[in-house]
């Protein structure tokens, strides 16, 4: 019996001591923040939340010359902030509805690379000046009509003169949502007005005041946000957006 007891004790000692190691590497705690800025207007480039919007690409080149990229998403307003990064040297770029930071020609040769390389220690801020495919600005605020539907007016212009991105405008959509996180991945299909354009029909609206009315009659009496998105068929066909605005229910 005693023997058994000693054997058991030995096992306990072995088991307990093998658990005693603590993680000897501190948790990532450095901060990278910044924004994607329209080179023409100086404002941040609006995008959608989730996988369909702007994202930041980090290459940790102090770890490997050819590392697996690490991505995180930008916020809706075009700013980004990540507080859980390791101190390291990063090559940073952003991807989204604007002329790419890293451009390749049709044979794979890199023809321009505006990535920024920083050595992160504690915290750092990086801003990217980009040329959005399209700029969408409100013309006045959306207004409620007598029948409780809403009419909005916007003006869309190109944000780049780069000849490779003068493609036809394929979609101009007025999104209606009950949160400000309004976009192509989050809208109420009963009231949102989605329009697809063929050929140069959409392009001919550039620079003009475009009037869009919600569909489906009266909006329900609740908080409602409006946002206009438009896109060209470039890259991953992501949308450029106006700012989201809310109008008080009459």
């Amino acid at each position, binding site marked *: 019996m005693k023997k058994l007891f000693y054997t058991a004790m030995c096992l306990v000692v072995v088991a307990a001591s093998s658990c005693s190691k603590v993680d000897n590497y501190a948790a990532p705690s450095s901060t990278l923040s910044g924004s994607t800025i329209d080179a023409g207007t100086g404002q941040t480039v609006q995008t959608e939340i989730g996988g369909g919007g702007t994202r930041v690409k980090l290459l940790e080149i102090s770890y490997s010359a050819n590392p*697996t990229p690490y991505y995180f998403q930008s916020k809706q307003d075009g700013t980004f902030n990540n507080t859980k990064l390791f101190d390291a040297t990063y090559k940073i770029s952003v991807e989204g509805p604007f002329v790419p930071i890293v451009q390749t020609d049709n*044979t794979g*040769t890199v023809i321009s690379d505006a990535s920024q390389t920083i050595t992160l220690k504690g915290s750092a801020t990086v801003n990217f000046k980009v040329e959005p495919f399209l700029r969408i600005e409100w013309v006045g605020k959306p207004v409620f009509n007598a029948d409780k539907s809403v009419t909005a007016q916007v003006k869309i212009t190109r944000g780049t003169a780069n000849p490779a991105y003068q493609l036809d405008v394929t979609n101009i959509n007025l999104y209606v949502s009950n949160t400000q996180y309004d976009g192509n991945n989050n809208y109420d299909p009963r009231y949102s007005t989605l329009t697809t354009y063929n050929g140069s029909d959409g392009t001919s609206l550039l620079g003009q005041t475009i009037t869009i009315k919600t569909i*489906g009659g009266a909006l329900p009496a609740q908080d409602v946000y409006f946002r206009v998105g438009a896109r060209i068929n470039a890259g*991953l066909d992501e949308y450029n957006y106006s700012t989201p605005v809310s109008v008080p229910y009459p």
Partner: protein
Amino acid sequence: MSNSNQQQIMKKYKYLILLVFLLAGVSACRKLNIPPKNIIQDADVFSSNGGIQAYMARLYSELPIEDFRYSPQRGLNFFWIISPTPATTGEALSRDQTGSMQENLGGWNWDLWSGSYTVIHDCDYFIQTLPKYASTFSTAQVNAWLGEAYFVRGMTYFALVKRLGGVPIVNTVLNYTPGSDVTDLKVPRSSEQAVWDQVASDFDFAIANLPAVNTDYGDGSRANKYVAAAFKSRAMLYAGTIAKYNTITLFDANKNQLCGIPASAAASYFQKAYDAAKTLDGIYSLYLSAWSPTDKAAQYQNFVNMFFDAGSKENIFVREYSYPNSVHGYDAYNVPRQLIGPNGYSAEVNPTLNFVEMFGGLPKNADGTLKTLDASGHYNLYTNTMDLFANAEPRLRATVIFPGDVFKGQNIEIRRGIYTGAATGGISPLLPAGSRSQYPLTNLQVSSTSTQTAYKLPDGTLMNPAGLSGIFTGDQTCAISGFSVRKWLDPNLATSQVKENNEAQTWIEMRYAEVLLNRAEAALELGSAGTNGANAADAFTVINQIRSRAGATQLSGVGALTIDTLRMERRKELAFENKTYWDLRRWRIFDKEQNGTIYKILMPFYSSQAGKYFFDARTDERNDTYTYDPRWYYEQIPQGAITKSTNLIQNPGY
């Protein structure tokens, strides 16, 4: 426990331990250079017909084809199909599929990445090993088996490249010795074009080495040279359309184009697709056993029978099932609600009005939509719901069960509700045109479940508000679109046998109609660049053969065949065969068709005042919105694969 007892137990242990040591120690002294008895050796497999048949059985069972056991949600070879493929393409609506989706490559059962490379490894192993045992068999037999292994490998690369673009090409067995350097095992992705060319060369080897009839199985469940040629036409057409229509590109550091093919390569792929399709000319034919040029009922019956006739000369490559070893549950998931089987389900695939409107023989408005209103804007009234479909194209009737049509001897009753409002002077639409709101419940009798309370009609007879197969407002296990699918459903299966994992009808993966459609599409895409007879006139002839068999009107002339009409013909002919999903991808129009799209449905109502039926065409009452993200044209490489082999570059946007 007493002390003596304990001692006895201790003693017992002592002997036991001694015994174990003796046994282990003594037997361990034997030499270990005999082959393990519990592992099947190469010689066991490769030196007999039976061994090779077993090897082949496994290769074929893992052949990645989208059959009765496939859905984008749960991947290949999985029994539970409740988010069916047609409900992701706009062909149908399903209660369990509420929008566009990319494939779930991890799957519930079958990891497409590692599963495919296992199959490729098994093919490579077979190709490397069989020649060592070649003296046991005739040369023709060895070549035929090698041809099959190349065929399976080509099919597997095809399954990978159509999803992911360029993938690693691994044509020799990779061996890992513990402790050795693994750099060579981290095979990087090849260019997309190189993988398509690999598919072509594997199929070419199969075509050159396979016999015209597979002597092991002549029924189309194993490959012959024409099977390989048919799949080559499918693959090369896919590659040609990618070269022509894809806009997403990705390069690696060595300038290999991992996603996308230079547009200049399109014509050569289309020509290869055409030439491969043409070799089947005269070997296979369209199924016409019960067909008559003048009788629409016969044309309809012929199209239904085609999916159940094992002797059909249209079947090129099939996957057979047999109870209880290899089964599916197609009927259980898809029969109309009133024929529901003993363990539930039913009505998972409900064809959309958008799909039905593609066909001829229906009253149409100028914009091609179904005509449900008269000139004054009131509903057209019908004595029977089938009256609207009286002249419908026979192929449509064989594909879709209309409200009121007959299946398994029953009238399939589909009714949204009873309209009790006034009917004199005509019935105005229940909702404004284009409205996405719910139907107003004034003057409307509906039923929320299949347990119904009958409504008393003005003449005193009783009528349930909804039909036996729906539509029930609170239970979507019914014909939510107003239609139910007919294609593939076994018309002779007793309802007591309509159960999951109980069905065994054959899946026809490749039939001659597709080969003709491949040929026509390749010819039309080539235009004046085509050789070997590939031209618009050939495409026109071929399309009219298919339309004639379908009971559709003939196209008037070559000029009437545009790429759009040809694509629509393909979608109509191959609907619900899990082909449209891939066609919409390779044409790169998925994101155009599913761009905030809500699909249309057709709701039959009975007017108690008029004593007649009317139909309301509207958008899906659930307001399920389909938006296809263009990045899905290239699926995400599983993160686990990149972690293991860090040379793999992820596709754009993931």
